[in-house]
């Protein structure tokens, strides 16, 4: 696709846990075929927290679901690309192999833990189920493991609470249950799809804490999907920004905050709540709304909303350009010296 190298030997000592190459995912709708993810590539190293950010509808959740082959059926399908898990392509893997990987090597947690947990099964049982699906194990042992996991993720009185049903837990506790379920088999990669969105701010921080804690404990990589750069700030090692199904920028987290190169990233940063700062006034919004993916803009997809739009933006598609070590941006002007947001475009 481009001359950009994603694998940085200076940074990554080992092979990436997962490498997504040129992923294309489509949905069949009544209006036509929607290409929700259009040629996205990235990789995640061992123990790395890799965040994907963007507005809702940008395709970030589709990326997450694509990794595990969980796109809603029969509407969704992976139309191209590869998902290499330790070198093995999961897109072309058999359903049986995919099932082996799911929950065991790659686990996933979701946005709304209440609806993501089965309301009629005890939480301990829902966790124990993971062991039984992948290991030859006595039900009693599986249950004990489940209880232990619950205490690992910080649920008090885990022994008793394992017997409770999801509706008997608070929102934060439910997400802890989801995490416990996800880490049961020490997966190499944990996909967290908007794990804190449904929770209130103080709980958000706790959950992120738990995630980082289990990463340390079990040496997991995390694919963190969020629309909130504030969540990314203290958590992610690297960040990928998506817009309208395309990757528009990727950078180490600090670089992204310091030297964002894509005008969309500037907009996102401008509309972010910062957990580390008190909230002042109302947040500025990016004017306009994301384009329809049925008929996306012909060239740069952000052009209709871009504050710095130029004629070329409407005629030529901007390839990803390398701007720094580990940082790429899909903007015609990304490599221009001094290219960056004006002070009023990003709050200090």
């Amino acid at each position, binding site marked *: 696709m481009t001359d950009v190298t994603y694998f940085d030997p200076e940074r990554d000592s080992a092979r990436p846990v997962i490498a997504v190459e040129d992923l294309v995912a489509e949905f069949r709708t009544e209006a036509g075929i929607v290409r929700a993810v259009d040629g996205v590539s990235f990789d995640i190293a061992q123990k790395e927290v890799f965040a994907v950010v963007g507005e809702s509808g940008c395709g970030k959740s589709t990326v997450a679901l694509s990794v595990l082959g969980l796109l809603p059926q029969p509407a969704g399908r992976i139309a191209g690309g590869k998902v290499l898990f330790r070198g093995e392509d999961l897109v072309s893997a058999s359903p049986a192999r995919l099932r082996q990987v799911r929950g065991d090597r790659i686990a996933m947690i979701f946005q709304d833990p209440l609806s993501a947990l089965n309301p009629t099964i005890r939480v301990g049982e829902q966790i124990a189920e993971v062991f039984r699906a992948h290991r030859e194990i006595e039900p009693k042992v599986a249950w004990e493991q489940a209880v232990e996991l619950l205490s690992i993720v910080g649920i008090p009185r885990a022994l008793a609470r394992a017997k409770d049903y999801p509706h008997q837990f608070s929102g934060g506790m439910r997400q802890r249950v989801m995490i416990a*379920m996800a880490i049961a088999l020490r997966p190499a990669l944990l996909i967290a799809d908007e794990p804190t969105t449904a929770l209130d701010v103080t709980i958000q921080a706790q959950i992120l804490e738990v995630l980082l804690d289990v990463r340390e404990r079990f040496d997991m990589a995390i694919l963190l999907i969020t629309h909130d750069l504030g969540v990314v700030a203290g958590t992610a090692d690297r960040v990928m920004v998506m817009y309208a199904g395309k990757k528009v920028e990727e950078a180490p987290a600090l670089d992204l905050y310091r030297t964002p190169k894509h005008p969309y990233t500037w907009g996102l940063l401008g509309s972010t709540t910062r957990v580390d700062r008190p909230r002042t006034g109302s947040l500025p919004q990016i004017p306009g709304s994301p384009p329809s993916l049925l008929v996306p803009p012909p060239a740069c997809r952000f052009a209709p909303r871009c504050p710095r739009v130029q004629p070329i933006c409407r005629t030529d598609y901007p390839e990803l350009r390398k701007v720094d070590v580990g940082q790429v941006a899909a903007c015609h002007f990304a490599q221009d010296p001094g290219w960056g947001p004006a002070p009023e475009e990003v709050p200090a």
Partner: protein
Amino acid sequence: MGQYIARRALVSIPVLLIASISVFAIVKATASPVAAIRSNPRVSQAAIEKYTHDLGLDKPPPEQYLTWLGNFIRGKWGTSIVTGRPVGPDIRDGLFNTMILGITSFLVSIVLGVGVGIFSAVRQYSFFDYLSTGSAFLGLSIPVFWFALILQIVFGLYLTNWFHLATPVLPTAGMFSPGATGIDLIDRIRHLILPVTVLSVQIVALYSRYTRAGMLDVLHSDYLRTARAKGLNERTVMMRHAMRNALTPLVSVAAIDVGALAGGLIVTETIFSWPGMGVLFISAMENGDYSVVLTWMMIVVAFVIVFNLIADILYAVLDPRIRYD
């Protein structure tokens, strides 16, 4: 839960009383046990008066009602004021016959309805899905009596003539062959086929729609995605996570329906000469026979109340979010 059941049982007593009083009033207002006799020219005015007096029909209606109620509570269901038949055994037999027909149809319908519903939900927008949802719509729209007539004519007459058979392919009415002695299971089943088909077409249509909707809800639910993300095999996902939650609403609907069965299947029973609760009610109602109608009604309402309670309990058992405290 125990408290809940006790409370519900207590509440149902006034329900039963109010129901029986209104039914008594309706029977009294719409029919009279004397009307048919009055129109018989061989019955003299004197005989009508004697009859009315002998049966206590000349007493004030509240007294008639209270007399009946007192006897009912003490378990003395007595005999029909019009036919002189003992009420208890007639209701027992009617209930038994209705249940044979109703429960059979019900089981057939549950199996077919749930099967069709699940299959068409899993294969949403497939040919089978369109076929089954279309058929369900048709099944719900067909008038029972018309469908019954068509079945009788096809299986009783046309096919029989077509194959030059001496006896009908399927019997068109009755619970067993006339004059049969003992219980011949094959014969009983042959007599069940047409009425069960008539009833089942409706219930299958209803339950398959119900199951399909419930199943679609669950198939699109987040927790099913979670189950798949955990790497459970498809069988476990469907049986353990999808079906149980999809069928919970159906189970309680079905429990209520079984209770309502006690009231009989008036049209089907009449057309197929099936001596069940529906037929019993119709003839008692026409006779103005409040002794039968009231007892019948108490049994039916009791059934409905009990099965509603069972539905509630089942719901609570199947869905831990529901608690009756």
